[in-house]
């Protein structure tokens, strides 16, 4: 499945009701005037891709921000922009991110009618104390309700969970994991990482959250596969067939067109980065681009592919990358005649593996 090159579309909805403490993604408070100028800009940007006709999409992903803060009419507008500029008849997967407190049955009905297949719900934790540490708007009850709602809608549900939250224990982590897999068919686990611009950084940014995270990650690696959720990528777990195809595109260098402020596209080996702020983006959607050399691209692809359980195709590997891998301890990898992938242990130590590989990139 992942061998098939696909084309994905990502749309960044840069609005939130409130900024979460750990978040450094770009978002602003929702304001009706801003939404319409954002939509106009998205339309302009999308138009650039449809000059020679509508491109076929295999996956669609609406992320943010908080896409569910959009009103139904704003949604309709967005969907028509997408439909007018891209061929969505070929979609095999369409995901929308949502927050437990702003997701409603109407949203779900609308999304379903519009062909969406997945909801990615920002649950983060099912312990209220942890949620409030994170500065989330919702509580655990709201999260549970939202999960139930998605489940009953018949859409596929992915839940995001965060670990290494100050105050979190393996017990509470186990509770959150257990709770989400009752409803979800896909779980993404992210370690709390605080960029200097995240609101929580001031209070917690200097703590050693990283070494804290290890035990939670190991536990997820143990627990989720036990429940049928295979680890198919560093941060992602799902039963076979429920992997997020859109995200897989990022890891196998498939084309992803990304619309909206701060969005990053990868098309034909060129990476385009849109202006970061809504203001700049509305003024001019054109950002910067970076053309990777074949060699840079080969190193990047090796590193990205190694994030997934499918790993890298040996025949595509540069010899120096293969020799770098061969010089590392065996237990970090799983070798098959065609492929090399990270073992569970290797996934835990991914950064080290990648930097060893990059050492050979000069």
């Amino acid at each position, binding site marked *: 499945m992942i061998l098939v090159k696909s084309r994905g579309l990502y749309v960044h909805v840069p609005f939130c009701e409130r900024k979460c403490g750990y978040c450094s993604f770009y978002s602003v408070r929702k304001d009706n005037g801003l939404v319409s100028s954002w939509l106009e800009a998205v339309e302009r940007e999308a138009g650039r891709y449809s000059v020679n006709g509508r491109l076929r999409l295999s996956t669609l992903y609406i992320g943010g921000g908080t896409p569910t803060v959009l009103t139904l009419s704003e949604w309709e507008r967005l969907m028509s922009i997408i439909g007018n500029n891209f061929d969505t008849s070929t979609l095999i997967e369409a995901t929308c991110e949502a927050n437990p407190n702003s997701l409603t049955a109407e949203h779900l009905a609308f999304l379903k009618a519009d062909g969406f297949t997945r909801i990615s719900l920002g649950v983060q934790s099912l312990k209220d104390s942890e949620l409030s540490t994170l500065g989330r708007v919702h509580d655990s009850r709201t999260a549970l309700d939202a999960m139930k709602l998605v489940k009953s809608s018949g859409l596929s549900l992915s839940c995001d969970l965060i670990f290494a939250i100050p105050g979190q224990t393996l017990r509470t982590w186990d509770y959150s994991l257990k709770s989400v897999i009752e409803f979800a068919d896909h779980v993404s686990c992210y370690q709390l990482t605080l960029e200097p611009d995240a609101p929580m950084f001031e209070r917690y940014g200097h703590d050693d959250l990283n070494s804290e995270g290890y035990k939670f990650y190991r536990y997820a690696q143990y627990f989720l596969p036990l429940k049928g959720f295979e680890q198919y990528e*560093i941060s992602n777990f799902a039963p076979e067939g429920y992997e997020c195809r859109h995200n897989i595109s990022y890891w196998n260098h498939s084309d992803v067109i990304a619309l909206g402020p701060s969005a*990053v596209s990868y098309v034909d080996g060129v990476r385009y980065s849109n202006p970061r702020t809504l203001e700049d983006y509305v003024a001019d959607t054109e950002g910067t681009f970076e053309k990777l050399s074949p060699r840079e691209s080969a190193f990047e692809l090796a590193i990205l592919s190694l994030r997934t359980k499918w790993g890298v195709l040996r025949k595509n590997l540069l010899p120096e990358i293969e020799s770098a891998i061969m010089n590392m301890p065996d237990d970090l990898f799983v070798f098959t005649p065609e492929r090399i992938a990270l073992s569970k242990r290797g996934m835990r*130590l991914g950064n*080290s593996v990648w930097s060893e590989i990059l050492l050979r990139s000069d």
Partner: protein
Amino acid sequence: MNNIRNFCIIAHIDHGKSTLADRLLESTNTISSREMKAQILDSLSLERERGITIKLVPVRMDYTAKDGQKYILNLIDTPGHVDFAYEVSRSLAACEGALLVVDATQGVEAQTVANAYQAIEQGLEILPVINKIDLPSARPDNAKQEISDVVGLDASNAVLTSAKTGEGVTDILERIVTDVPAPEGDPKAPLQALIFDSVYDNYRGVICYVRVVNGTIKSGQNIMFMANGITYPVNEAGVFKPGFTPVNELKAGEVGYVTASIKTLAEAQVGDTITDANNPAGSPLPGYKKVKSVVFCGFYPVERDNYPQLRDALEKLCLNDSAVTYEPESSEALGFGFRCGFLGLLHMDVVRERLREEYGVELVATAPNVIYEVVKTSGEVIEAHRPSDFPDPSEIDEIREPYIKLSVFMPSEFTGRVMQLVQDKRGTYKSMDYITPERVRLVYEMPLSEFIVDFHDKLKSQTRGYASLDYELVGLKASELVRVDILVNGEAADAFSFVCHKDQAYNRGHAVVTKLKELIPSQLFEIPIQASIGRRVIVRVNVKALRKDVLAKCYGGDITRKRKLLEKQKEGKNSRSVLGLHAG
């Protein structure tokens, strides 16, 4: 022969031996003051830096005594340091008398005693000389008393002198004539000449410094080296004037040199006897032995590319110093180098200095170590030069290590500290006596391996430099030694293995693994570092893998950020390669 006097000067470092020698040369007009570089006998710069004499350079002085007769005085300079005890003993064997120089301000020191006893043992007539009497703090009577109390020699008629001002120098010359016995020997007997030193000259080959004991040596004669049976025709025989001055023959009782186109120092070893190949003596002179290295360390070029220069330099140096041994070895951290053997720590420093000064080789020296003797359960006895030579603990019956007898002289206030220091170094108390109410002599036995590491520096700092020491090897003794292996990620890292007493194994193992933990970059992999004795792990620490960001999400916009982050890590990594580790 009656008018020949062969003598040497023995003294503790800094007690003025070289200055006194210079003054004797001056007084006898052996060299003019114009030629006189200060302390001409000390030729190596290291010797000059430290003010100590290492290499013996003999010199012949012509002196007309007050009795009107002309005398030939041969001064054979001796290295004062215990590293060269064997060379000292051979030099002493070439003399009939010795000047025992004691500093009037310092009194008897450790080396004074050791050297004096060696001279007494060799049957030399000893003339006590109290030097530096010009100094305001000079206490010549105390010095005399100490010579009598500590060394046990009558010093009542000791010559009082100041090598600096020249006062008393003539008295010394007179006393040499009157007190030092003339050499005995039969010029007609088969040749026996003692090699008390030999040096290498690029043009003439090996130059043997000899004392003719019996018989006569002349150019053209076929001589034989009795230790190895090699024969050579003599090219030239001569005396030290102080330059090399050829003479027709060297007769019994005389001191001089012989050249015979000998190619390596190994063929003309110190202590060997030269005889007439056509009329050989029945037996060699007593006392010859092959010198054996006791202290070893690795020499590596600072720049790995300079390995060939180091090899050439060592080869050349060994032409001049047969006591140095070397064999190639390699280290993961340091590349290619040599494991070198020395007579002692000072000898090691001298060689290092010579490599630097004379051959321009900059090098890294590893920590010095000694040779152990391992008795295996099978009864086999092996020499272990490095930790990797040790068999598995289950095959070891006994390990023996070289021990020294250590004498420390110091002001009594430091006694407690020094005792503590020596005990920490596994020393065993032998004796303690008061030389004067203020000065103490401590005698301990301790393992050489403990002595060579940092004992001297520690002693200096504990006693603010007031202690002096001397030691002699007393042989091998069984010790409860263990080899501690360091395992990095389950694999033995040979370069870090070490041998120590079992009681120190934990502490030293802990120190090494802790140091390694700091040095190994943490972004590699989770690695255990262990110290073990055989299969028993005694210390274990883990180098934690750096897990920063491993689990961060990585989608569209994250990819570039991720790559930059990794690039940054990579730079950090390049700058401290894992292989750059050095044992700590």
